[in-house]
């Protein structure tokens, strides 16, 4: 089975699954295929060149809706991780924020339009960035310019002054700090504690045609997520992630944040480490998580149709909860409650309005 991925630290479960061949027990041999862009992940999933992928949660929903690109029926098999993303500000903007007292005040005095990078128009990083800006009274579509920059290029763009900030996964925020290009202003767990991030995605017809293989893949990845989640195994996997064929950066820029150590920086709230398993709490593809992305697309005008009720229906088509439950049961992984209420950085509670009775 061919799995696509993009160069990010949270690809750790896939790398572990391949390295230790967790698939063999379930009759699967995995082949990993690094992709240069999320668009390439999408195109190759649609073309059948890869069977499944490490994917941004929002990418799956964007393709399902056909936002700005081809439309296809998609499936989320499971969540691969929570947390582990961040927003970096250029040194200049970080200093301006300190001086002005707030981001809004700093941006108001900023010469020209501030430019922020993110990784995909419907992706998680765009949504974390927009949410965080809006929570501080900065309109992400009017007050700043938002551009997509491939994560490995964000640091160069910051150095050259083409970006004033960006939101991306690790190790790229750590790399920006290590190269002295910017500072991590906020980690994603401060925006939404334990937010869903990457998912295991495939085309829906793949699940329909190969339910056995899909279930075997979920079991394989659940075991890989469980393995990689322990502190010792994070340290063990880091050098493998750092290798040229995965991230191609020094291991010293990968391991600390993968292990949950955010050194040197001061944060309002203690950053929560990227989490791959947490007793199975991470991996269940909860419908309300999918609904959150749909609600955000509507908030920012990317989606003009549907409502909270139709969102639940759509999420139930995409997120393969029944298949996940079967796989989890056979791996003896407990499934968390369907309903989870979170408080986000702007004080809003989210439980998926229509998904929560009462």
């Amino acid at each position, binding site marked *: 089975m061919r799995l696509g991925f993009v160069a990010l630290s949270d690809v750790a479960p896939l790398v572990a699954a391949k390295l230790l061949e967790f698939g063999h027990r379930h009759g699967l041999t995995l082949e990993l295929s690094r992709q*240069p*862009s*999320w*668009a*390439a992940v*999408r*195109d*190759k999933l*649609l*073309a*059948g*060149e890869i069977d499944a992928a490490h994917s941004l949660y929002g990418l799956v929903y*964007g393709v399902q809706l056909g*936002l*700005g*690109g*081809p*439309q*296809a029926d998609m499936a989320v098999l499971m969540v691969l991780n929570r947390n582990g993303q961040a927003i970096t500000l250029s040194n200049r903007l970080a200093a301006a924020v300190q001086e002005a007292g707030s981001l809004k005040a700093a941006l108001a005095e900023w010469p020209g339009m501030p430019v922020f990078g993110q*990784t*995909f*128009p*419907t992706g998680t990083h765009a949504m974390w960035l927009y949410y965080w800006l809006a929570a501080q009274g900065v309109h992400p579509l009017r007050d700043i310019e*938002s*551009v*997509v*920059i*491939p994560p*490995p*290029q964000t640091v*160069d*763009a910051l150095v*050259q002054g*083409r*970006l004033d900030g960006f939101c991306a996964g690790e190790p790229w925020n750590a790399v920006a700090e290590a190269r002295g290009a910017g500072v991590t202003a906020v980690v994603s767990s401060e925006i939404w504690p334990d937010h869903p991030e990457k998912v295991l995605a495939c085309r829906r017809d793949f699940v329909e045609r190969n339910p056995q293989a899909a279930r075997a893949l979920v079991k394989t990845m659940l075991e890989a997520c469980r393995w990689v989640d322990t502190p010792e195994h994070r340290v063990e996997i880091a050098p493998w992630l750092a290798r040229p064929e995965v991230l191609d950066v020094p291991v010293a820029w990968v391991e600390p944040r993968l292990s949950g150590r955010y050194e040197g920086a001061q944060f309002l709230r203690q950053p929560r480490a990227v989490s791959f398993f947490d007793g199975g709490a991470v991996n269940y593809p909860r419908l309300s998580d999918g609904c959150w992305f749909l609600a955000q697309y509507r908030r920012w005008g*990317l989606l003009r149709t549907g409502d909270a009720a139709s969102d639940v229906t759509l999420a139930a088509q995409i997120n393969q909860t029944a298949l996940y439950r079967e796989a989890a049961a056979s791996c003896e992984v407990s499934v968390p409650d369907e309903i989870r209420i979170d408080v986000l950085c702007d004080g809003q509670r989210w439980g998926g309005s229509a998904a929560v009775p009462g």
Partner: protein
Amino acid sequence: MLRVLLVTDTDKPIGDMREALARLGYEMLPELGAPQMLHGRVESDRPDVVIIDTESPSRDTLEQLAVMNETAPRPVLMFSADPNQQLIRAAVDAGVTAYLVEGLDVGRFTPILEVALARFAHEEKLRQRLVKAEAELADRKLIDRAKRLLMDRRKMSEQDAYATLRKRAMDQGVKLVEVARQLISVADLLG
């Protein structure tokens, strides 16, 4: 003349493609200094076609432009040395504008460019038709609402209500939907 932006940020050889396309009569926009400039250049230079490699990491930048800006150039044409033609064809069928150009033979490239553009123009026309149909539907709803207002409040028949609206439109020399809009906003104001 077609304005073409060639993005060359992978290590695949493009040979004399730039010169060859220029000879074929395309206006070749200056190359990007850095991949990060792609966003700004597409916005400022407004190319008709962006030719970009399937393996280019900058492709997501074009995705953003397609989502945020309906007039962004969508016919993203990709060249690839990937020998698997079938996969490329599947991608094209799925709506991904991707083409295989073996050895980047520019002679074979021109028809592909034209096809991509024709396809984009076709999709654009469909999109505009949809926008127009949606607007017409919204207009009809407004006119219906205005008609119902007159029927409810002035106890008019449907025919009389329609005739009243039409006469007002004629007298004022405006569209029927404008009259409907005025009537509804006044009614809203008076409650």
